């Protein structure tokens, strides 16, 4: 358990360091899609933490959910802009609500302990 948390921390810092030092910069136009991807990823991660606290964590579901959520969020937003429908707003609302729900459940689990 603690090894996993440690590994996650190390991975996160590694990713941040690499991300901050890569000379490549994403074009402005794609920034909103990446933002949605980040939101979806955070949602997935908090969902995973919640599942782990509820003791029905499944690695496959977590990993596939993580990547598919990112791609779906960004892809839907992209399709939305192409169609002229602001699907990104829908994604933001949906992921935001789930994010806060997950956070609330995690908080309750932590408080119960």
């Amino acid at each position, binding site marked *: 358990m603690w*090894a*996993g948390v440690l*590994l*996650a*921390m*190390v*991975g*996160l*810092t*590694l*990713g*941040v*360091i*690499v*991300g*901050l030092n*890569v000379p490549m*910069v*994403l074009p*402005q*136009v794609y*920034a*909103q899609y*990446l*933002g949605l*991807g*980040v939101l979806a*990823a*955070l949602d997935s*991660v908090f969902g*995973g933490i919640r599942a782990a606290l509820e003791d029905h964590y499944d*690695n496959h579901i*977590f*990993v596939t959910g*993580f990547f598919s959520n*990112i791609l779906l969020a960004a892809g839907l937003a992209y399709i939305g802009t192409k169609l002229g429908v602001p699907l990104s707003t829908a994604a933001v609302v949906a992921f935001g609500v789930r994010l806060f729900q997950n956070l609330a459940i995690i908080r309750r689990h932590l408080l119960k302990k």
Partner: protein
Amino acid sequence: MNKTLYISIAVVSVVLGLMVAFQFRTAGRVDSGVPIDRVQLLTTELKQIEKEYTTLLIEANDLESKLAQAEKGRPEASQAVQKELQKVRQIAGMTELEGPGVEVTLAPIKKEDLQAGENLFTVRDEDLLRVINELRGAGAEALAINGQRIISNSEIRLAGTFIDVNLTRISPPYSVLAIGAPDQLESALLIKGGLVDTMRNWGVAVNVAKKETLTVPAYKHRIHIEYAKPLKEEK
């Protein structure tokens, strides 16, 4: 089982960290950059202008090629016009001409030789007119009397005791220059019982000389056309 769990956690966290950092950097730039709406607006505008630019470029190329073509055609056309102009000026007598022909000199016989009235044996305007007429009839292409070119509206007339040609006073001895076939011109004048014979009888010293080349001067006065208007050419 545990291994894959750790690997997946590590991969997921690295990806998350990367994305967050990236997004952080891009979002940080938003303040300094242009708003996205503006970017899109400008992009569409740019695309439109680029399209316009290409069409204008095509048009410019087209016009340039047309211009080049016109330029190519122009020297020929101007040459043709120049040639035509040259011809018309020649016909009108506005140019100096050179060629073979005859020189006819008319002079009154000296008074000492004949005891007669002064006026009787001078060269009259009619004599000059006759000479000019005869030369024209023989195919003279250009005529001049004492440096005055004879053109379509030249006059030869007596004005007092002098003769005016082109409103310019000329005085004896008179020299008539004619460009044409020299033999033809000469024979037309010297024919037996012809003009020269008659004039010699009247007491005018006439001399006809064939010339290899002689120069007929250009008409030097202004041509003033006030009343005559060209009709529209009917086709």
